[in-house]
């Protein structure tokens, strides 16, 4: 489990880094000269993505046996915090721009996680249970 999560963390962190640099490049969000220390901000965003999407989500989805309400609460909190921190690290201007909409973002994040962790998970479990019951008959 630890090995899987570690690999997933490194994989997601690296891909996030490439994705952020790609977005900055195609949308011309960069300046001609970027302060060297800003690179650490980008690495910070990648690490946050790695923790949330490379460790927390795979753990909650694949290994955890917590109640769905706990899963929704944990994933919503982590996702929301990670998004806000990422925007803050990316640009202070962008953070100021989204500041008035934080509650709306939280509500949308919560609804998304309810759909994902409750409805989709229930549907997935039903399918999985059916296929396992079929395997039992063999």
């Amino acid at each position: 489990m630890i090995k899987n999560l570690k690999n997933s963390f490194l994989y997601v962190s690296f891909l996030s880094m490439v994705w952020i640099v790609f977005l900055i490049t195609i949308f011309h969000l960069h300046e001609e000269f970027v302060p060297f220390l800003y690179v650490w901000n980008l690495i910070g965003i990648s690490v946050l993505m790695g923790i949330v999407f490379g460790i927390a989500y795979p753990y909650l989805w694949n290994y955890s046996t917590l109640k769905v309400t706990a899963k929704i609460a944990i994933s919503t909190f982590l996702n929301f915090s990670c998004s806000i921190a990422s925007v803050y690290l990316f640009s202070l201007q962008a953070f100021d721009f989204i500041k008035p909409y934080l509650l709306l973002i939280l509500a949308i994040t919560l609804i998304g996680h309810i759909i994902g962790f409750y409805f989709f998970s229930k549907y997935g479990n039903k399918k999985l249970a059916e296929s396992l019951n079929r395997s039992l008959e063999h």
Partner: protein
Amino acid sequence: MKFSYIWKSNQPASEIEIISNPSNKELLSTFEQRFFQSITLNATDFKTNRQVMIEVGNIEVIEASGHFTKIFLLDGTQLLLNKILKELSYLEPFGLVRINNSMILNLNQIHSFASGSHARLEVITKQQNKYVVSRHYAKFIKEKLL
């Protein structure tokens, strides 16, 4: 019935390959069950504090409990084993497999699977007990059942 043995040095020591006619399926399944049941564990009885030998086939679940594990037998008896769950992974070929991070279940005791409460996957045993199965181990169980 005649037995013929083919010895292969590259065959894993924990694996025995049996080639037979499909009509022998039931007979071989009985052999397998008897073989599994002959594996024993030395556990402590909660009530008497005595050491007891138990057959693997009589176990329903093994649950992690700190540095120890609790064994639940088919008749509901609870026993204590001085081992952590990880140390019991050798029981896997005998049908005792992990169903989540803190539990090992006897595959021979599975009655069915169902989508249970709180959007969790559950396994129902022949004793009508319900246990939560994590998605990761569900895929592994499926491979074992096929």
